[in-house]
């Protein structure tokens, strides 16, 4: 080998000092932000874990007694709300995928010079406060409003009532209304990742598939959809996770029969002031979501997505 490969002599103090300082740069860049996350994200989870195994009352104070029974009691009492949350969030996620895919496809491949305008129309509704938009659904789905009238005339609501999605010829305060609100609120979180992954697909692949006598449907099934999988996975996660913990839609558009687990956590924490139960509920929700996300990511084979 040549002389240049000899290890460089770096014993000069100034050079050495500079390189140490350089090596520390990433740590200095990370320090404030990571510290923030450790103190206000990770540490609170530890506090919550400890709260969930405490016993006591607000007056007498709480003590850690390793009272794991709280978890079983919480699950036994509130499992319907858990099941409902997962069911509603899952349905909303599937609906988001079915509704969002064509729009993302439209923006990526068909919009042409309208692309930016359509993108703006997808993002802009975001900026009207989501509570105001959710309240607007109350107007849209109102009893005696045009939507309910049309669906009643077409006897659609009879069918949905028979399925248990609605009740007595109305939409408000039914599971259907809650799912409709959830789907609406989280749709942009599905469309944007889908669009990003579709946009990356080389258009020539579609031509190649066509040249190989694939029909448009086959091209979609064998080429476009598999290549958009990263978008499908991240879109599904970005929709499902917040939807599972949401209680705004269930409270504004639903009834006491459509309560989701978020509502229970909120009222236990802020109204009943039963901190151990609230902490246990929130831990169970976190565990369920994390387990489902992990399994889902394993199954879809995109662990390196993160």
């Amino acid at each position: 080998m040549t002389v240049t490969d000899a290890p460089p002599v770096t014993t000069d103090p100034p050079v050495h000092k500079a390189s140490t300082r350089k090596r520390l740069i990433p740590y200095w860049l990370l320090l404030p932000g990571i510290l923030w996350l450790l103190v206000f994200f990770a540490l609170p989870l530890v506090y919550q874990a400890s709260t969930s195994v405490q016993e006591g009352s607000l007056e007498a104070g709480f003590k850690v007694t390793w009272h794991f029974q709280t978890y079983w009691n919480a699950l036994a009492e509130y499992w319907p709300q858990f099941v409902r949350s997962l069911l509603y969030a899952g349905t909303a996620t599937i609906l988001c995928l079915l509704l969002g895919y064509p729009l993302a496809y439209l923006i990526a491949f068909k919009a042409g010079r309208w692309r930016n305008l359509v993108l703006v129309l997808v993002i802009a509704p975001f900026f009207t406060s989501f509570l105001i938009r959710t309240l607007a659904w109350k107007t849209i789905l109102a009893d005696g409003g045009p939507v309910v009238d049309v669906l009643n005339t077409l006897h659609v609501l009879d069918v949905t009532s028979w399925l248990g999605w609605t009740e007595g010829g109305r939409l408000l305060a039914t599971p259907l209304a809650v799912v409709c609100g959830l789907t609406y609120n989280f749709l942009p979180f599905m469309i944007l990742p889908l669009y990003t992954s579709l946009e990356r697909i080389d258009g020539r692949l579609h031509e190649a598939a066509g040249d190989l006598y694939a029909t448009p449907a086959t091209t979609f099934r064998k080429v476009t959809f598999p290549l958009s999988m990263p978008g499908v996975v991240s879109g599904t996660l970005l929709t499902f996770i917040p939807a599972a913990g949401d209680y705004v839609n269930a409270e504004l558009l639903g009834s006491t029969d459509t309560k989701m687990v978020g509502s229970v956590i909120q009222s236990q924490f802020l109204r009943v002031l039963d901190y151990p139960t609230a902490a246990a509920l929130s831990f169970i929700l976190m565990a369920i979501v994390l387990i489902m996300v992990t399994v889902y990511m394993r199954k879809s084979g995109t662990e390196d997505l993160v």
Partner: protein
Amino acid sequence: MAASLKTPIKWLRRNFVVIAGLLTLAYMILPNVVVMVFSFNKPNGRFNYAWQKFSTDAWQDPCGVADLCGSLALSLQLAAWATLGATVLGTMIAFALVRYRFRARGAINSLIFLPMAMPEVVMAASLLTLFLNMGAPLGFWTVLIAHIMFCLSFVVTAVKARVMSMDPRLEEAARDLYAGPVQTFVRVTLPIAAPGIAAGALLAFSLSFDDFIITNFNAGSTVTFPMFVWGSAQRGTPVQINVIGTAMFVIAVLVVLGGQFIAGRRKNSASPK
């Protein structure tokens, strides 16, 4: 006969994606249209859910409801500080993650990812336990701390995407032309990373301004705009809420279109004609 029936079906099949996409778009915009229309309503009772009569009263007096504009000002202020905090901290983290190799990178990546993969209500509740245990008075500061915390990850992701796609040779070129490290950063690196930082900041602003769940847990008696809207849903929604919703929508459309217009012009002037 058969042909006349076949043509529309054929047409529908050929344009399926466009029709389905536009229907989804209509579904997304419908509530905004309703908000806009009902900002011109003159409701008969406390609730503004049924159409009564056209009126521009609410537009002439958007602050006519007690506490509404106060909560709006508070939310804007909070969002501004949260954006500043999250953007500075997040940009630093993003640069460290993309530009440097060091130990604990994996752990730090997970720490950044986890807040985004956690239902909001879980974070909200756990932060509240921390504040209660520390005996911190709930209010502006606890909300600001919470907002910076959950916006941080989104800023990191946005900036990281941009910095990752940057060509490192541009910075090498700057160094070859005798630019110092500071000069290289200010004149080359920062301008290239700017769109990513701007996207992160915009995201942080809208997330913070719109947040209800985490704020609801940690605000104590402080009332932000989303909390005002939430409260009014029970007490009776004033028309002014629709006015502000409409104004926000219009401003957002103008800002985004303006941003794209500037970006488009810059691209045109940069590319050789």
